[in-house]
Each structure stands twice: as C-alpha cells, then as structure tokens.
C-alpha cells in the first residue's frame, strides 16, 4: 500500500504528551492535512500542556490559548479579525477535549454552529477530564472507571452523543475519525477545509494513562473501537446526508475492546452484555440513517 500522507511535519518533537497519547498524534495528522496556513485555538485541555510551557511551542502554526469554555467563539473571533484584514485563506481550527466540547464548551460551540461560523472545530475525545487527572465527563462511557466514578459506582449514564447533537445543527460537515485510519482522518480534514461554514470533527483519541492500558496498544484500541462498533466512522453533510466511511468486516464483540482497558476491568458479564446490546442498537440506528440518505 502506498503511503499518501505528507511527510512534512508541522508538529515538532519535544512536545510533552504522555507516551501513546492519541491527542498528540491526532494533532500531528490534522496539521499535515490542513497545512501551514492554519491558526489553532486551544482552550484548557491536555493540549494546553502538550504544546509546551512559555516560551516553548511545539507547533509550526500560531496558537491562541483561551479559556476552557471558549474554543469555538475564540476561533470565530480570530476568523472575524482575519476576514476584516482581508486574510481569507487562513483556516482557523478550534481544538478542544471532550470536557471542553461536550460539557463546559457546548454553549459557545452551539452558538458558533447556529451562526455557521467558518471554522473547523475538533473534539479530540479521550472520554474523561484527563488533564486534571481522569475525572468523568459527559463523554465517559457507561460503566467506565474514573477518579470521580470509582469502581464501586462506575459511571451510570451513557456517553452523550455529541456527533448527533452537532449533526442536528445542520452544519455543512460533521465527521468522526480515529487514528487507526489516518488516511480517512486526513481526507476528512481536507474536506472540512474546502467547505465554508462550521465543520465539526469528532476524533476518537485514546488516553493510555486514563484508560489504564499499555501505551503501545493505542492504535490497536482505535481499530478495535471501530471494528466492535463502539466508535463508528462516518460523516454527515448538511445534517442530512450520512455516509458510513469504514464498514467493519466482521462484527467484533465489544469484550475484545473492553478487556484491554483497566478502566473496564470491574465489569461483570451482565454489564458487558448490556454494553453489547446498546452498541448493537446504536449501530442499527446509524445504518438506518445512512440507508435513508
């Protein structure tokens, strides 16, 4: 197979991500797709640290750090300023974690989407507040351990479906992607860059530290998440036209995905059966939507 991803790096070595960080690799790939004419907006998230403390900076593009709940509107503000200055060919990308997107930042994100502001918004989803030390967010899946959902009472609620929430805003482009499928991810960023309006990319980005798994399993866990339909890879244009981009060849049981992560080690067979049931249900829903469009 030919390697079609650009070799030029816009992320330098020397960043301070943990080993096997999905969020770090996601940024590296996203910038390869978007190129140098990009400005990144970072709210409080792991990337606040990963980029490096002042005066260090690990990206070869300008970065504006901003407050936790402001990723989307700060990107809108940058885009507005650039437009007024006649610099219309610069891509502005907000890059926020799941807490900064699904929880504290959802108001500003919804506002930007409603106005169809011309930005790319990435949620790199590691399914908890990892930067503060693994606390549950509304992206944490049901049954998972975190420091605020200890094993005796793991998270009771299912993960909030941010992808569908954003699709419901009828913005021009919403897509999911993950690191085991880098070409799919890169194509989606390039597509997002070519579209005017709000683009939302939900990138599944494992955190080996918070998920209690070996760092070298990061890519494998991404693939298992897709093959077991835990994290489907699809896109939706204008809130209507769904396409499932990666069709798992065989239906892998969710247990194969769960068993590699310490955060699920306490689950009983009954818990696993319930997760399987819920994943199967969601899968059917998605296939119905894709078939209709």
């Amino acid at each position, binding site marked *: 197979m030919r390697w079609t991803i650009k070799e030029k790096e816009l992320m330098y070595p020397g960043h301070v991500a943990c080993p096997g960080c999905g969020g770090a690799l996601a940024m590296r790939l996203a910038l390869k797709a978007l190129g140098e004419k990009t400005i990144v907006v970072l709210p409080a998230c792991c990337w606040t640290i990963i980029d490096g403390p002042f005066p260090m900076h690990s990206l070869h593009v300008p970065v504006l750090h*901003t407050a936790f709940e402001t990723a989307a509107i700060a990107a*809108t*503000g*940058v885009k507005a*300023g650039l437009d*007024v200055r006649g610099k219309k060919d610069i891509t502005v990308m907000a890059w926020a974690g799941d807490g900064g997107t699904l929880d504290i930042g959802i*108001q500003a994100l919804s506002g930007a989407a409603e106005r169809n502001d011309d930005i790319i918004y990435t949620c790199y989803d590691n399914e908890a507040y990892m930067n503060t030390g693994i606390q549950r967010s509304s992206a944490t899946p049901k049954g998972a351990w975190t420091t605020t959902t200890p094993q005796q009472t793991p998270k009771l609620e299912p993960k909030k479906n941010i992808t569908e929430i954003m699709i419901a805003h009828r913005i021009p482009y919403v897509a999911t992607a993950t690191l085991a499928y880098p070409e799919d991810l890169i194509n989606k960023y390039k597509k997002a860059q070519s579209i005017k309006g709000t683009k939302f990319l939900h990138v599944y980005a494992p955190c080996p530290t918070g998920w209690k798994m070996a760092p070298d399993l990061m890519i494998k866990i991404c693939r298992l998440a897709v093959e077991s339909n835990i994290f489907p890879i699809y896109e939706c244009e204008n809130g209507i036209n769904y396409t499932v981009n990666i069709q798992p060849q065989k239906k892998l049981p969710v247990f194969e995905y769960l068993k590699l992560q310490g955060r699920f080690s306490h689950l009983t067979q009954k818990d696993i059966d319930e997760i399987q049931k819920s994943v199967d249900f969601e899968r059917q829903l998605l296939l119905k939507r894709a078939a209709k469009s």
Partner: protein
Amino acid sequence: MKKVITGNHAVSYGAQLARTQVISAYPITPQTQVVELLSEFCASGKLKAKFIKVESEHSAMTACIAASLTGVRTFTATSAHGLALMHEMLHWAAGARTPVVMANINRAMGPGWSVWTDQNDSLSQRDTGWIQLYCESNQEVLDTTIQAFKIAEKLLLPVMVILDAFVLSHTSEQVDLPEQSVVDQFLPRFELKTKLDLSHPSAYGGLTNPDHYFEIRYKIQKAHEQALAVIKSVNDEFNELFGRKYGVIEAYRCDDAKVILVTSGTITSTARVVIDTMREQGRKVGLLKQKLFRPTPTEQLREVLFKAQKIAVIDRNISFGHSGVFAQEIKSSLYGLAGAPPVFDYIIGLGGRDVTPDAIYEIIDNTFKTDVPNEPIIWRGVRL
C-alpha cells in the same frame, strides 16, 4: 453636527466614528440600544465592521479578545449580569494585553432583579486590569468612547466606558457629533505589533510557569502607572481637535472649599446645582468629580482633597462587609498624609433609587455639622 441622542446612542456613534472593525455583543437591558444602532450602522454600510451576534456576554468578550489579537479594533457593550458573566474574560483581556473597548451601563445586580442604576457591577471588576472611566453627560460618553480606543491602543490595556442606566443611557441630550475626518486624524488605523501571524507561528497565553508569570503581571501594573500620563496627553490632543476636555478628575469650585463632595457618574450633574445653591448661600463647598477610577489618580485626588477640612463621598455602591468603594479609594489615596481630612462615606441610591438635590444638600449640610464621621458608613434614604 449637533444631534439630540440618548447616552446609549452616544456610545454607538462613538464606536462607529472610531471605525470599530469587529463588534460582538449580546442583548441586555439597559444596554441593548447600543448594539441595536451599531447593527443598523453595519447593515447600512455606515460602519464596515463584522458584527458577531453571540449567544452570551462571555462569548462576546472572548470574540473581542480573539479578534483583537489579529490586529483589529474591537468593541462590545454590556451591563450588570452580562458584565459579571464576562468576569473570567475581563481578566483574560487585560492579561493578554488586548486593547478591547467596552461600554458598561451601570445597573444593579440581582437578586431581586433590578434594571436600574448603581455601580456594583463595574466596581466588582476593579481588579481585572481594566481602565475604568465614568461619564456624566451624553457628550462625555461620546467623547470618552472615541478617546478610549486611543488610550487602549497606546497602553495595550482594555478600557471600560461607564454610564448610568436610564439616567444617562435612555436620556436624550444634545451631542456634538464630530466630523469623521477629524476623528480619523485623532484615531488613525490600528496597528498591533505582536499578533497572530503565520510568518511568526508563536503561541499566545499558554502555560506560564513561575519563572515568567510574575513579570507579565508587573508589566500590566507598569502600564496602569503610565496610563495617567497617556490619558492626559490623549485628552489634550482631543481638546486641541474638538475643543472639549475632561480631566481624570474635575474640581468644581474647590479652591477655598471647607467641604468637598466627591461624586461619579450622573450624580455629579445634580451635585453641581446643589453646590451652586450652597455657594450662593455663602457655604464654602466644592465638588470633585472622579472620572477615572482605575488606575487611581492618587496624586490628582490628593492635590484637590488635601486642602479641604472634610470630604463627603457619595457611593452608589456597597462593598459588603466594608464600605462604599469610592470612599475606600479616597481614604487609601489620602493615607499617610499628615493632617488629611476625615472622609464621610454616604451610601445612597442603590438599585436606581433617585438621588435628589435635597438629599445631596442634606449630605453636605450634615458633613458641615459633624466634626468626624460617627460611623464608617452613613446610609441615606433607607426605609426600614
């Protein structure tokens, strides 16, 4: 051109004449008219600005900060709860050294809900690093808004222009609208030296460890210390071009005054009438209007107030558990001066309760009659 307009519209005309490039705002009574008129200016092409109609004041301030860092002139307006919601980003605006200009219409904080004026909203933002300028008339509002951009851009500090709810925001007065060409001469195109720039891919506002953070704060304070001279020079230049000037403070009939009354905002206008009446009666009373609240014009305050035998401060605000905020600042400014006059702190007019000439007369009269304040704060008009 002379035009009869409200205080709110004076703000809008100021922002339009300043050729604001990005506006971001959210409606709140009694501010809303400011951004309504700006929306019309943008829609008609009278102002070539991008107007981001956001979903909250928190986002309004964030959009201004972010746009400002691309090197454009930015503006927003708010009031009370909107300002309180912005609080985090007010720190951010000053910390990021963005010359954002904002009008705040002084409105009381809930609960209970009040849309009427007092100063607790803006004074609660005292320590965020913003310059605060309080206005007395619609002309002053317009002129201060235009000057605010120049002050902000010279110092790289955000500036808040403040006016009273309804008493000024919704009251029409004659305002002299300056010619655009003269405003352009006064306020040339904004250039920001350090900005988000692809040719210099730097990071702004990132993780800053104890080796660097302290110096950033030191420099913000130094900029505030420079502000007094900058505001004066901007004021002088404005006066040369437009023939109107406002000091950081204004001393009215203070020269031989035994009692000096300190006011801010529209109470000043009422107080001028009372001072004139009492002067006619032979009472030696003067008025000090404090326009600039932050940075504190300590030297200017001392120079005028030290000559008086007593000082009466009108505070349309209360710092719970302490006293009125202006009185605290006046006391702090006079501290350490041997023989400094006693300061009487009168709390009056919270939540928009009317402050009448009679009430001001009584405050001054009471100050004459009392040697030293018997209590740390003196309430006026409380009905229990």
